[in-house]
């Protein structure tokens, strides 16, 4: 037991040290996903939880909402400032900042194709918090820290060299049906 914990946390910490870019380049991710039902997003091993349909559905007008609004479909579990309003894009951190090495994941329905996508919310790090950008606090499928990979009340810059929180991107990393 003890060995397992040591191994796991040791491995996880080591994973966390790897760069997001290196992980993202791994071509084996999708097959890994299919095999284990887990997602490696920027270095952390995260559970892929089925979208909780207990509560209501997406608003009808979601398709018309642009990506600079908190109502945009990808932002269904985002808690932070939009990087695309701070010099970045939907998936790019603003120049000079760093992408977080670890991230949390949401499951959001794309109103155009009706499919549920896994969205990695990477924080961008090492720059002053970008309060110039819209602050969004949506929480579909969000869980407290006991399901860390689904938790958005922590600073996901935690594993970076510079932990200052700047803003958040929303990156499509998988399909969940």
């Amino acid at each position, binding site marked *: 037991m003890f060995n397992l*914990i040591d191994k*796991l*946390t040791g491995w*996880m*910490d080591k994973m*966390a040290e790897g760069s997001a870019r290196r992980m993202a380049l791994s071509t084996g991710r999708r097959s890994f996903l299919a095999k284990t039902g887990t997602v490696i997003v920027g270095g*952390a091993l995260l559970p892929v*939880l*089925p979208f*909780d*349909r*207990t*509560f*209501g559905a997406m608003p009808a007008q979601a398709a018309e909402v642009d990506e600079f609004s908190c109502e945009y479909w990808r932002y*269904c*579990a985002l808690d932070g400032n939009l990087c695309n309003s701070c010099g970045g894009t939907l998936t790019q951190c603003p120049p000079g900042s760093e992408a977080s090495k*670890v991230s949390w994941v949401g499951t959001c329905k794309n109103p155009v194709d009706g499919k549920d996508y896994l969205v990695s919310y990477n924080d961008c790090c*090492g*720059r*002053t*918090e970008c*309060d110039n950008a819209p602050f969004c*606090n*949506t*929480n*579909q*499928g*969000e*869980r*407290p*820290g*006991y*399901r*860390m*990979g689904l*938790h958005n*009340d*922590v*600073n*996901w*810059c*935690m*594993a970076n060299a*510079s*932990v*200052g*929180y*700047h803003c958040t991107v929303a990156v499509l990393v998988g399909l969940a049906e």
Partner: protein
Amino acid sequence: MLKLTHVAFGALLAAAPAALAEDAFKPEQVSVKETIDPGPNVFVYQQEWRGAGSLAIFAQDNLKLKGLLPTGSMGQMLIAPDGKTAWAQSSYLKRIVYGPNEQVLQTFDVDKLTVKGEAILPPKAAMALGYSALLRLSSDGKLIFVQNATPAASVTVADAATGATLQEIPTPGCWGIYPLPGKSGFAAICGDGTFSTVTVSADGKTASAEASAPIFNPDADPIFIEDESYDGALYFVSYKGVLLKLDMSGKTVAKLDTAELTTGVEGGWAPGGYQLMSIDPKIGVLFIQMHPDAKDGSHKLAAQEIWAYDLKAKKVLSRSKVSDISSLVVSKSDKPVVFGSTEVGKLFRFETDPAAGYALKPAGEATLTGFPRTLDLVE
């Protein structure tokens, strides 16, 4: 060589003499107030993510601000049961938002508002929104427990008197710190729906853990990490409004009872916010933040009502309309006072009417700054 050929001392010398009255005027002297005003306090942690947060101390009776204690960024606060000592865990980056991060545990003298000491923690402490379950004192008051996330979860155990780190306990997949009654240690909520009971040795340096049976379903109806103790039990509430009554005193955490807050109520009401509930043990009443039309993702919405719920009778005593309260705390009194904070910078004080099911009446407000999500009070 600097050669100044003119005199231009401005503020230093170029003074036009003023006629000074030779009357009884006695100059005042600037000084520093020695201690805060006496009387019971409300503590609010004003968190910042790009600079210094602060621990604000208000008078319970009129919300007069008694002073601020300084912290770093992304921190948590902790108040001793006697209200005389406070702690904060926070981050100090070399360049505030970049560069090496020094995570510090500060110890404060509440009466004098001084920094009594500081200790450097292992650089793993969770940089999280304010939650009281992330920085805790052991029930004997000797140890401080710090929630870590790297994102792997663990707990740093520090000496409450010195701040010195004694050990780091891995708590993989578990979160929150709930001090065990009558012994050293804490429980934590785990991602599989169990609780882990971590017993810490007398010297604080070793620990053992024991899992409970399943307590809740984290997929179907997860619980908030906010806890409240009453009558020897610990209470949690789920996203859908199920109240859990737990026994923390055994080797493992055991479920004693459950109750549905919203049974028979129309409108899709559910609990929501951050520090979303508080129990007045004198009267056995839970005050809880509720919002209507609940759906997946609405669990952090601010309250549109605060409900007073009788824990013994298991029924809602009153429902009071409020504006955007996202965290609250209630005084321990026969006629409780509720203090609630908004996300946009207000602290509200509500008196309650025992004859009307402890319905809330606005009775004062004050200005807050930053992200004020944790409140505490000592009578």
